[in-house]
């Protein structure tokens, strides 16, 4: 394995794991499509960031683009609550508006922005190792890899430290409020993390495949596990295996790396779904099993 291959697989794994961890909370909160919306809405932010920084990643620009994701969340809520537009429609309304603005900015400054349409939709992983981070004058490795690592550490820390808060806010927001926990603060914290992750992942996997990493591994893990901590770990593992497996599949097929990673994740989901279907058929879990011993668990 070449060093550049390693960098691609390593970066992709970091991205996939981060997305999967956050995705668990999105799926449990029934906000999977919110992830879809955010991943599209950060496009104008990214385009402007490219424009201002001449495609040199800087953390200020990353954060600026992240703000668009948070703005999306706020707008969708406002349109839904204040304007009484039904929720799915307000999601569709807001993210397409932002996305079009992004595409227009990119077309208007095509010569200044090194982002083509394919990249916006499904990313270009092969280009990841191209841009290096400099320590003084010494190149110390690709920028994208460092971004992905920092992002993974950030999300991991947040989840480990605030595990209980996130758990109780997700499961029973009413109860959380009665404990004096500010549910909306945690909601926006989570949405900020999702936005930030989307922005960092965008270059590598594009708008739509970010959704795949957010939703597919976490959904598969949701079907197979019975506790939140297990779900998080399993989702991260599925994401990791999808990233590695997808890379080899792409190599073999000579096709898009991110696309192959999504397909492998989809395969994992299919296995999870089928095994769950089989399990439910062989052991009917009725809701009236009061008093009977636990079956197959413990």
């Amino acid at each position, binding site marked *: 394995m070449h060093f550049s291959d390693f960098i691609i697989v390593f970066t992709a794994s970091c991205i996939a794991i981060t997305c999967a961890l956050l995705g668990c909370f999105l799926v449990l909160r029934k906000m999977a499509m919110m992830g879809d919306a955010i991943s599209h809405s950060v496009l104008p932010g990214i385009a402007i960031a490219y424009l201002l920084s001449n495609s040199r990643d800087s953390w200020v620009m990353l954060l600026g683009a992240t703000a668009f994701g948070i703005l999306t969340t706020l707008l969708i809520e406002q349109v839904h609550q204040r304007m009484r537009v039904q929720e799915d429609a307000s*999601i569709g309304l807001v993210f397409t508006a932002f996305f079009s603005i992004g595409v227009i900015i990119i077309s208007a400054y095509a010569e200044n922005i090194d982002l083509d349409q394919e990249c916006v939709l499904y990313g270009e992983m092969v280009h990841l190792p191209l841009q290096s981070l400099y320590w003084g004058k010494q190149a110390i490795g690709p920028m994208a890899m460092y971004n992905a690592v920092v992002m993974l550490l950030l999300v991991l820390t947040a989840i480990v430290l605030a595990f209980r808060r996130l758990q109780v806010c997700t499961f029973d927001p009413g109860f959380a409020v009665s404990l004096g926990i500010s549910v909306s603060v945690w909601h926006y914290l989570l949405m900020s993390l999702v936005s930030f992750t989307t922005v960092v992942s965008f270059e590598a996997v594009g708008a739509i495949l970010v959704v795949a990493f957010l939703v597919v591994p976490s959904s598969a893990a*949701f079907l197979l596990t019975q506790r939140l901590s297990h779900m998080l770990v399993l989702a991260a593992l599925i994401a990791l295996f999808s990233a590695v497996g997808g890379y080899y599949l792409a190599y073999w097929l000579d096709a898009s790396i991110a*696309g192959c990673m999504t*397909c492998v994740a989809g395969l994992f989901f299919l296995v999870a779904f089928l095994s769950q279907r089989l399990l439910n058929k062989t052991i009917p879990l009725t809701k009236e099993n009061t008093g009977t011993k636990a079956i197959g668990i413990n």
Partner: protein
Amino acid sequence: METIVRFFSLQDPNVRYVVLGMLLLSVSTAVIGTFSLLRKKALAGDAVSHAVLPGVCLSFLISGQKEIWSLMAGAFVSGLLSLWCVQYISKHSKLKEDASIGIVLSVFFGLGVVLLTFIQHQGNASQSGLDAFLFGKAAVLMPSDVWVMSIVAVVMLFMVYAFYKEFTLFSFDPGFAQSIGLPVQRLEYILTALMVMSIVMGIQTVGVVLMSAMLITPAAIARFWTNQLFRMLILSVVFSMIASVAGAYISFLAPNMPTGPWIVVVLSGMALLSFLVAPQRGIVWKWWQARILKRKTAEENVLKAMYQLGEKENSFQETYTLEDIFSRRAYATVYTSRILQRLHHQGYVIWEQGEAQLTAEGIRKGSLITRRHRLWETYLTQVVNIAPDHVHDDAESMEHLITEELEKKLLEQLKDPSLDPHQSEIPPIN
């Protein structure tokens, strides 16, 4: 000016095809979008538009050429399959619909991207048309595309015309539709097929992502302006058409500007405008209503204050200075004198040289407000069971809202009371 004429006279054949194609597309997507919005399936369209890609690629791989009908057939099949998957997953697992849409959307698209890049890397010369299914090609519509679009639009309109009653009932209340013996399952199939059909056609024009906007946004705006289905259909078609022509015009003026995104930006602008000014629900409308109500409240409060001063002295012919009025209500001077000026114009008060006197009309209005206030206090204590010392604040605002009809009912239910809970006299109607 010249460009406007050149564009709208449709001399340029290219402009003609683009405008015609976009108009036809608007009709079919707006109509089907309205039904899917009402059925709370707005985002299902998003899944379908992403999911057609693998079908297109597979059909290309099998047939080896980009013949439009076979590509569209492939797109249609994988679009249908994706919707079936969404339903199957949410029905047979604990995953909710949002997650299953997300899964189907992204996995189908991922598969499509793999196939597409596979085909590209094979170096097949004729593959170039395939990415029209990703990004659209509104600017280079061909006569043949316009033909396809007109067929789809005609089929769509015919179906909606033929099944209008059934679709309406089914969209609003599927349970009821089933109970009166409508073939719900078949209607569902028809609507789904129509949706997939219009998406397959639309994607080639505006691209994957913006297809959702063509479905959702016009319907959402129309819903904002009306509660009636037929009007909603007409409005969403009109909005969609305006945006399409505007988008085509913008990219005609600046050729490097993409048509699809501009259509969506125009549509979103229309949505924003609607949120601001639409009657009943728009922000500006609401703000204006609140302002009117606030003015009315302030005016009625001054009249009430003067009336109650008169009550105390048992004569309503007195004149009062601002200070007198302040003794009943704490208000800033400028405000009160401005309110008195307005009341003067309306004929409720004579306001001259810093002194105000109620006219006959003013006495009537003052007694009306006072009556409603005291009636509501009486109602709250007697019927709602609230302590007499807690009812004043409530009555202070309700007095401005109580209508004549409600007042009559209050009098009826309370049997024409003469005293309120604080032993003040309730002025009779005269």
